[in-house]
């Protein structure tokens, strides 16, 4: 039996809340090393391949940006929801709807020329995501349906809607029957920053969104109300904050941001609709929010780390012949270790008092 026990801290430790993500990353790396060893790989070489080699040249960093943009957009929206204790797991569906809605307009405007096409496509993408978020808000505020379950169901519905589109009405008639749409026209494609790389201007959307949401949360009454609602519902009600309106706001904002991420992805690095427009960005963004300590700057850094797990998975597949699904494994481990380490924010580990000094208190925490 372990000779240690947990003791509640008088108040939460600020330091630990910053250290916990670092501990989690270190534990993930150690576990990853052990895993690679078990798979018969040299752990240091494998970890290098997974976490360092993707970033050894400019191209790697621009590819990181390609993935940071959608992750950050989804995560910053989710942050608003989680701040208000609205457990929106639906960024994935809102992302897909954004891609589908924007992509639909892009396909309709295939022959249109002019610089108004792209803003229109982006607008409809964000709007589609927003409407998907609105559905959740309606179900929650009007009917009181649990948002965790409704958003997950909406994610599956969104995915099947996309599949219906690319297998049916949106399929490219000249596409040899592949479940893909036609390639969007140049007027409906996001400009890249440099012709040598895939990085496009969606990274600026992401950084802009981070700045706006940061200002919203730290400088405005609305942001304050959202925080209060999340921390103490009773206090928010007592202060006369309109709870329903705040729930609507966070879900609409998150839907629009995730939708923008989705439409930026299809008009950016993908350039068409296909069944795989999201490699799970909406779910990974949940980890980003927790890892980034629900703070905009933290979210940017956490997005970079999660983006790296996607690139690492690809590198491991190419160089080490390991399955790409390592990405999901590392993401899951990271979140698990983070939750475990977060315990240290409100508890500290102390040596268990010896049996003699505790006397008769028999029901101590031994499990």
């Amino acid at each position, binding site marked *: 039996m372990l000779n240690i026990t947990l003791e509640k801290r008088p108040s939460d430790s600020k330091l630990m809340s910053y250290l916990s993500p670092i501990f989690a990353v270190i534990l993930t790396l150690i576990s990853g090393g052990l895993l690679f060893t078990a798979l018969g790989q040299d752990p240091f070489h494998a970890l290098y391949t997974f976490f360092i080699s993707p970033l050894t040249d400019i191209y790697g960093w621009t590819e990181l940006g390609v993935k940071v943009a959608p992750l950050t957009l989804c995560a910053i929206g989710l942050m608003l929801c989680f701040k208000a204790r609205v457990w929106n797991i639906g960024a994935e569906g809102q992302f897909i709807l954004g891609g589908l809605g924007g992509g639909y307009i892009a396909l309709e405007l295939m022959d249109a020329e002019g610089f108004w096409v792209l803003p229109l496509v982006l607008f409809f993408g964000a709007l589609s995501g927003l409407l998907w978020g609105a559905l959740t808000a309606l179900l929650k505020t009007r009917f009181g349906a649990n948002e*965790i379950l409704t958003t997950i169901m909406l994610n599956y519905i969104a995915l099947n809607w996309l599949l219906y589109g690319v*297998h*049916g009405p949106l399929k490219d008639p000249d596409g040899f029957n592949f479940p893909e749409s036609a390639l969007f026209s140049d007027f409906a494609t996001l400009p890249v920053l440099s012709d040598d790389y895939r990085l496009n201007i969606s990274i600026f959307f992401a950084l802009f969104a981070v700045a706006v949401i940061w200002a919203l949360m730290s400088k405005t009454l609305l942001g304050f109300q959202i925080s209060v609602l999340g921390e103490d519902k009773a206090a928010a009600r007592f202060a006369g904050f309109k709870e329903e309106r705040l729930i609507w706001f966070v879900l609409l904002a998150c839907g629009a941001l995730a939708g923008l991420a989705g439409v930026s992805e299809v008009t950016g690095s993908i350039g068409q609709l296909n069944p795989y427009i999201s490699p799970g960005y909406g779910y990974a963004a949940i980890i980003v929010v927790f890892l980034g300590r629900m703070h905009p700057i933290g979210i940017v850094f956490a997005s970079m780390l999660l983006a790296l797990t996607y690139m690492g998975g690809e590198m491991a597949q190419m160089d080490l012949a390991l399955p790409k699904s*390592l990405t999901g494994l590392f993401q*899951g481990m990271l979140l698990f270790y983070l939750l475990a380490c977060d*315990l240290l924010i409100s508890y500290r580990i102390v040596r268990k008092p010896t049996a003699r000094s505790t006397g008769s208190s028999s029901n101590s*925490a031994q499990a």
Partner: protein
Amino acid sequence: MDFELFTNILFATLRTGTPLILIALGEMVCEKSGVLNLGQEGMVLMGAALGFIAAVVTGHAGLGIIAAILAGMMMSVLFAFLAVTLVSNQVATGLALTIFGTGLSGFLGAGYVGMAIDGIAPFPIPLLSDIPFIGKVLFSHDPLVYLSWVMFALIFWCFRSTRLGLTIRAVGENPEAANAIGIPVMKVRYGAILFGGAMAGLAGAYLSLVYTPMWSEGMSAGRGWIALALVVFASWKAERILLGAYLFGAASIMHLVLQGLGFEASPNLLAMLPYGATIIVLVIIASDAAKAKLSTPLALGKPYRPQV
């Protein structure tokens, strides 16, 4: 609709409902003890992956089932350690379990995608299966369908007339009081979570060894989540879980019904039905909030640590 088609639809409904019954019964026991485990989807996927791998490696589907149950239990121990011992947030931990299970099962199963195995053969019950109609609908299934009925009966009986059932409920309603009268709250919760993991693993085995004898990433397709909604829908009553699961099973095989009636519809659009049905169910549950509150285990989702 001709009679044979009707028979086939009922038969398929029972098959489709079976994994939902297994997952939902396990989660119900877990929630009765006051623990909300949102990691069902991850545990089901791990059960499906490891069950399939074990069946391929050993060439024995029965060993696959055992491996699946163990896989589900191992995942649930992870959850229990974090949520019970380390008193972490149950919602976040459950989500983490799903994300982790999805990733780990995809990783472990990567080499087995597209492989075919024989799976578990149906076992028509002698004599009974010869009865027209009823024999086909009820008694021509694979052993796991019968097992789901046995598990239902056991759990129904457990909560209706055993001390164990009372103990679990006491822990889920008021852990402080349960602790005060000497019930080992932590142990009961560990046990309930482990049982939930075993059932989820078994459901995974049903998917990858019986329902569609193959492995593909994310093959549970949200059944773990649907089962979570089902438990609330059933107000934590085993008999209603049975009914609800078959209703969902029917919604999931609407394409069979429509084809039988001569309609053509996109399989992707029809695939939305069970998810849409879940949302409708969630709305119905919530509209009767007072009743839902009455049947919810009082301490559900609230971490508990006995004071030293």
